[in-house]
Each structure stands twice: as structure tokens, then as C-alpha cells.
């Protein structure tokens, strides 16, 4: 029981951390440093769906 607890709690937190990291742009581009996207980043952004022009930001 203790072993299950000690495995599950940190792994759960690591899982949440990974999920949050995936969705953060500053993982690859630091706001204090001049942005220079790699070829991989540019390709990834090119394949990302364009935002809907009719949608209101924050709505």
C-alpha cells in the first residue's frame, strides 16, 4: 500500500507537469531571449490549424 502511494503521487504530479509543459510555448522560446525557431518548430507551426477568424479572443 505504501509502495503504491509512493509511486502514484509523484508520478501523477509528473504526468500533470508533462501535460502543462506540452502546452507552454516558453518551453522552447524564452521570453528574455531573441526567438530563433528551429526548422522543426517552424514545421510544427506550419501544420498547426489556423485560428478561426470569426472567434472572439477570450470568449
Amino acid at each position: 500500500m505504501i509502495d503504491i502511494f509512493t509511486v502514484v503521487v509523484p508520478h501523477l504530479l509528473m504526468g500533470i507537469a508533462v501535460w502543462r509543459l506540452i502546452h507552454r510555448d516558453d518551453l522552447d522560446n524564452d521570453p528574455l531571449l531573441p526567438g530563433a525557431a528551429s526548422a522543426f518548430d517552424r514545421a510544427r507551426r506550419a501544420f498547426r490549424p489556423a485560428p478561426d477568424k470569426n472567434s472572439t479572443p477570450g470568449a
Partner: protein
Amino acid sequence: MLNLFLTAFVTAFLAAGVRRPFLFVLAYAYIDVVAPQKVTWGFLAHVPVSLIAFICAVTAWAVAENKDGIRFSPRQFVLLMLLVYCGLTTRSADFPEEAFEKWGWVWKALVFAMFLPLTLRTRLRIEAFALFMVLSVGVIVIGGGIKTLAGGGGYGELKLLVNDNQGLYEGSIISTVAVCVMPLALWLARHGTIFRPSWLVWLFAMGICFACLLMPVGTQARTGLVCAAVLGMLMLRTSKKRFTYIAVIAALGLVAVPLLPQSFTERMSTIGNHQSDQSASTRVAVWKWTIEFAKTHPFGGGFNAYLQNAVSYDTVKAEKAGDNNTAIETERIVEKGRAYHSSYFEMLGEQGYPGLGLWLLLHLMGVVHMELIRRRFAKDPPAELAWVTPLADALQQAQIVYLFGGAFVGIAFQPFCYMLVGLQCGLSAYIGRVKRAAPKPFRAPRKEAVPLPASA
């Protein structure tokens, strides 16, 4: 169930790396610390997950990462020299087979420490790596702490997640490493952005720190107590309310001491008298042997050279013999092939004076670099760099604790400690990039304004 859970976690972690290549670096660090392949008995136990994560991390960095502005720092160069030197001593080792076995994981730890700073390009990456170091150690210490509280501790008796007494699952090593991660856990609670400061985050950080402090109690490793004392002294330096800090530590000590198990206090009392304890006497005898060995082998005997040692010493025991008399009993102990029980002597015996010199240089440079960084941003730092000095402090404290703990445990090549070195190099490199990216004025400002002529 645990088997499936860990397999699913590792698979998902590696899959996430496909989307964000840096996650492979975190996955490697996690696998290296927790060793999920040892915890499980199924699929993971038969797959070289550590090697897979390592290859993925390096390949993803080579193919997909932005490499603008990265530089090979002097400390990375020292690491490279240490790697080459260790490779050379392995070729001429006294025990080639055993030396090659250790070299099999040492080279990976050194290469990863050199590689890590190249990937730590952003503040978030530095934070993420520190977070995964703390949480990965948490996988070991949370259970260890709970078992200690439940009375399951004892010298060589505390059952951690993996019961093989190797690497971070060895009592003295986990006690040292646990104390090392405490400053990082506190820094994350104060300055984290992945888990922002809140009462829940603080509660978890304090829980981790408490579990870390329980590791020396549970394992009854004297090294851990020394490390905790050293960290307490170092934290006094950075504490803003020093008298309050001293009062709190003293009060906690007074409350904790009566609650400690008797076996723990008895074992800790042998710190000052090594002759009454066989384990401590062995260390002293092996250290003396190593000094003599280095006289005839100044370039070291290669990895695991200790296997050729044979030491003998006397243990002295004092027992009450009634009527206020004490019976002194001396016993002659002869031992062979005993480990160094000290990182300094491990380096001296295995890598000789050049290896010891490189290793000391690597760590002393770390302490100095962190000191320079913490001073640079100590007074009125810009808001976006307010986290730098506390992190430099935490990394310096962790390293000094490691250097003290390493005096009594053979962890000169412990991969976790090289992650700490890599993280320090990453922070130094990040600060260098920020400095270079700062806009420079077109003209240097004048020291004194020259008044305009009145006729103008």
C-alpha cells in the same frame, strides 16, 4: 497493477517527447533516478529504457532543437577531460572486467552532464529539470519516510521501493541525495511556474523535505545526519530572519530528539569515536590503504581498484563490568576488497591524482560559479530574473551538501550528482545568453555631464 502503471507512464512520457523533444531529456533523468525497470518485473525489465531515452534525447536535440547561442563552457570541457581520462584508466585498469562494467554507466552519466546544458535553453526547461529531479527522488523518499514513521527503519533494514541496495536505493546514498534535493524543492515551491506557489504546493514541498529528513533516520546513515547539519548551516546564510531560523531549528530539534528511535541515537553517537564501530573503522583503514596505493599508482588503478585491498584494524569496545569497572575489549578485524566509502578516496584510488584534481576542479568551479551568479542578481534584480539568485543558492547548497556527504560515501560518479552539475552549467549558460541578448546602448553614458556654454 504497478507494473502496468509504470509501463504506461514511461511509454506515454516517451510519446510526449515526440511532440516536445525536450521531454526526452526529462524522461531520461526520470528513468536514471527512479529506475522503473527495476521496480517492475514485466515489459520494462527486459527493455533498455534508459538507453532508449538517452538516444531519443540526443537524436531529438541534434535533429529538432535550436542550437543558436549555445557554447561549450569550461566546466563541460573539464567533464570531457574527465571522461577521456576515465576511458584511458579503464583500458589499463587493474581489474579490466570489473572496471569495464562500471565504465558502462559512468560514461553515460558524464556524457549526459555535458549534454544537459546544451538543452537547458530556457528558464522553463531549467525549472522543469529541477522539478523532475525532485519528484523522481520523491518516488523513493516518500515511501521511505512513511515506512520510517511506521517504525520500519533501521540500519540496513529500511525497505525502499527497490531492495537491491544499489545506486540511489542504497541507504547512505539516498540519505545524501535526499538532503541535496531539499533546497531545490523549496526553490520550486517559491518560484515554480509549472506548479505555481500555493498552500497545496507548499504542503507538498514541506512533505518532501520532511521525508528527505527522515531518510537519515530510517536508514540510520550517519552521512545523512552530517549532510542535514551542513544544509542547516548553509540555509542560515540565506535566511533573512536568522534568529527566528535558529530558534525554530532549536525548537524542532528539542521536540524531535526524544522521538528518535534509540538505535538511531546510539548509531549517531559513534560519529565521534570510529574505533567502537566496525563500519567506521573499515573506512579509516581503507582510506589509509588508498593513500599508500596512490604512492605506487599515482595515475590510479582504474574503476573498482579497491577489490585488491586488504585491511586490518582493531575495534575497541567498552562494556560495564560491574562495581564501576569497565572492561575494554579489543578485537582484530581483517577484511578484503572493501569499498572506498568516500568519493575523494574513490577518485584517488581509481583515477589517481589527475582524476582527483579534475573532479575537485569540476566541483569547486561549480561552487564558485553559483556564488558569482547569486551575487550578480542578489541586489535589485529585474522582476523576470528574481528567481536566479535563489536557484543559484539552492544549487550551491546542494553541491556543498554533496561534497560533505561524498566524504563518507563513494558517490564520485553517481549520475544524480552529475545532473546537478549539468543543471548548474545550464543555469550559467542561460545567464550568459541573457547577458549577451540584453540591448547594448549605442554610446556609453558619460560619467559627468558637461555644461553647455552660456553664450550658446
